[in-house]
């Protein structure tokens, strides 16, 4: 059991078990797991001597924190004002159609992709913008969305071989 929380304990120690550092702690923990597992959050609450409700409260307040696992590849479509007036809604629809995401579903059934609509990436000069993992694609179109996603799928298939 202790082994499981070892990476979290290391982070807690770096921050001197200071409850005011809860946000940076959760940010670092999320980097390890790609989301915030419930038992880890309980463990953090325990160690910081605060209630689990406080930790969950912070974790659910900020958009950056995820309490369910995210996909392997994160697709961010910017829906800031500049991107919106340049047609980002078409990009979001294109991603959803391509990945067969329905309703509010964000992650594909196979756990390969997660779609996130973000408010502004500050790259308004390149609107509309889509980011797959760390790669920024400026002046994007629905046709290009499909192409870029295919590229990721092809790379995955190649790696699997």
């Amino acid at each position, binding site marked *: 059991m202790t082994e499981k929380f070892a990476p979290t304990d290391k982070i807690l120690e770096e921050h001197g078990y200071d*409850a*005011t*550092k*809860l*946000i*940076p702690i*959760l*940010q670092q923990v999320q980097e390890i797991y790609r989301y915030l597992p419930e038992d880890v959050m309980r463990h953090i609450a325990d160690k910081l001597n605060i209630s689990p409700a*406080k930790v969950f*409260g*912070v974790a659910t*307040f*900020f*958009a*950056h*924190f995820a309490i369910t696992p995210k996909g392997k590849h994160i697709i961010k479509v910017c*829906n*800031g*004002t*500049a*991107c*919106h*007036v*340049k047609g980002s809604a*078409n990009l979001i*629809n*294109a991603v959803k*159609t391509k990945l067969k995401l329905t309703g509010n579903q964000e992650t594909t059934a196979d756990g390969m992709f997660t779609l996130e609509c*973000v*408010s*502004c*990436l*500050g*790259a*308004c*000069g*390149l*609107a509309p*913008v889509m980011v797959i993992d760390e790669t*920024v694609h*400026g002046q994007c*179109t*629905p*046709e290009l969305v499909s192409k870029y996603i295919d590229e990721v799928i092809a790379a995955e298939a190649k790696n699997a071989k």
Partner: protein
Amino acid sequence: MPNKSIEQIKKDYNEAYKNVTGRVTICGGTGCMAGGSMKVYDAFEAEFKKHNIGYCLNITKGCHENYLSISGCRGFCAAGPLVSVNDVFYTHVKPEDVPEIVEKTVMKGEVVDRLLYADPATKVHYKTTAEIPFYSKQERILLADCGRINPEDINEYIAHGGYAQAKRAYLEMTDEQVCQEMIKSGLRGRGGGGFPTGKKWDFTRIEKGPKKYVICNADEGAPGAFMDRSVMEGNPNAVIEGMMIAARAIGADEGYVYVRMEYPLAVVRMRKAIKQAEELGVLGENIFGSGKNFKINVMEGAGAFVCGEETALIASVEGKRGMPKVKPPFPSQSGLFGKPTVINNVETLATVAKVLEMGAEKFAAIGPKTSPGTKTFAVTGHVANTGLVEVPMGTTLRQVIDEVAGGTTNNDGTVNKAAFKAAQIGGPSGGCLTKEHLDVPLDFDSLKSVGAMIGSGGLVVMNEHTCMVNVARFFLEFTKRESCGKCVPCREGTDQMLALLTDITEGRGTMKTLETLEELAKSVQKASLCALGKTAPNPVLSTLKYFRDEYLAHVQKKECPAGVCKALSKYRIDAAKCKGCGMCKKACPVQAISGEVGKPHQIDPKKCIKCGACARTCKFGAVTR
């Protein structure tokens, strides 16, 4: 205490720079980097090696021939990646272009004409930034060094006069004198509220110490605004110097930079600059031998727009949910951890050293009396030159859009000044300006008088193909999502306003819907706790005021005049224009188009999902909606 005085650093740097014969500067802002500018940087290094051309990546003793450096955001993001070779300015540079640039421009001083900036309307080519209207029509005080200096080298900042004002504030001025100088300059906060900076400092100065804080609000969350990002990436030391002067003015020994997590590069550059400043002894303990200390921490936000509100930001630094508090008490009395705190935005802090350098009187003389100085605007949307511009306060909207940004464009990117419909200023909290406001001076008070606000300075230009109801709905969707949920008027009000706007855009609206929407908007404006809620109805109210006919068309005729609202639009193929090439049929993702080759095609409205792929593929303009 510095190991070496800043005067000595400046002297050494300039001495070493003397032997540099040429400089290649590659824009390292987010926009250009997304366009591949770092590959261009690598290509230059490889090409220098290939031709055996001497170069250096840092200015140190013994440096000679060419200096290859990055710069911060140069604001002209639409034309990136940007490269300058001495004063020759190249746009849209790709790694493949580098051999030619090195062979011609670096080695022979010749210009590669095809890479120069060409005006989209006149097709005139310009060689230097000084000639390009986008730059020549601006007055760059804050942004002067962004794009000129290497943001990752503190020595170059110092060589350009950096930290001299911080030193003066710590050694030659009293805390009160610093506050008075800022009051005299008339500088008003650039984050949205426009509160006089000097007064804010003075209120905090007179509070009891010893523990006080300075916070730099870099949680630039308003969609369409990126000036703070550009300043942090392009000139992080200016932000640090501003924070140091603020700390001196109020008597603080600790500061926080709260950067939103969507700006990873800004975080890296700020951290790097802080580290360099500490290593040089400019920042840290016993600053300039004054006996005073100042430490800066960088904290990344976790994605909440409301944290741009100062009390919510403070809660977030304390490790709590980022919810705003009732004011008073103001942060100047009880801020971070209950201590007196000054909280200023990035642009304000980066302006501080400039104010001291030029003197309060000279700064106050720029622009209108009640809103002195220059202001940066992030101009985006349907304009020829999207990017970051800095103009004196009081410049008109027309000057910014037509002269600096090159004019409004059609959807295909061609310049058409007559296509201007509206400009949304101040993001989701602001209002829209229309044709009749083109000559309104852009300053705090003039904008307030027409129901808009400068806000953080996002300026989104929209052409006649934009649906204003859709724009209002877009902003509401944003504020509804970002409402923190603490107070009922904002939490429930934004939700209901969004539902009403959705009804209108989807053809279910009635006159009663409009009436309810307007009434609700006014209640939310009055009753919300913080600025997020109080300003959330602004986009609704201002579009209702200036574009009521569009609302009426949606409600009464069930039509979207701009053809944007999907539920109200119908795609059709004009049989007279259709050549039967079949391109649209191929592009349609749901097989809604049928027809034989060479004969006019048809769209099945039952299958059509209104994605617009057909309209984009048609070369003959036969698909209409």
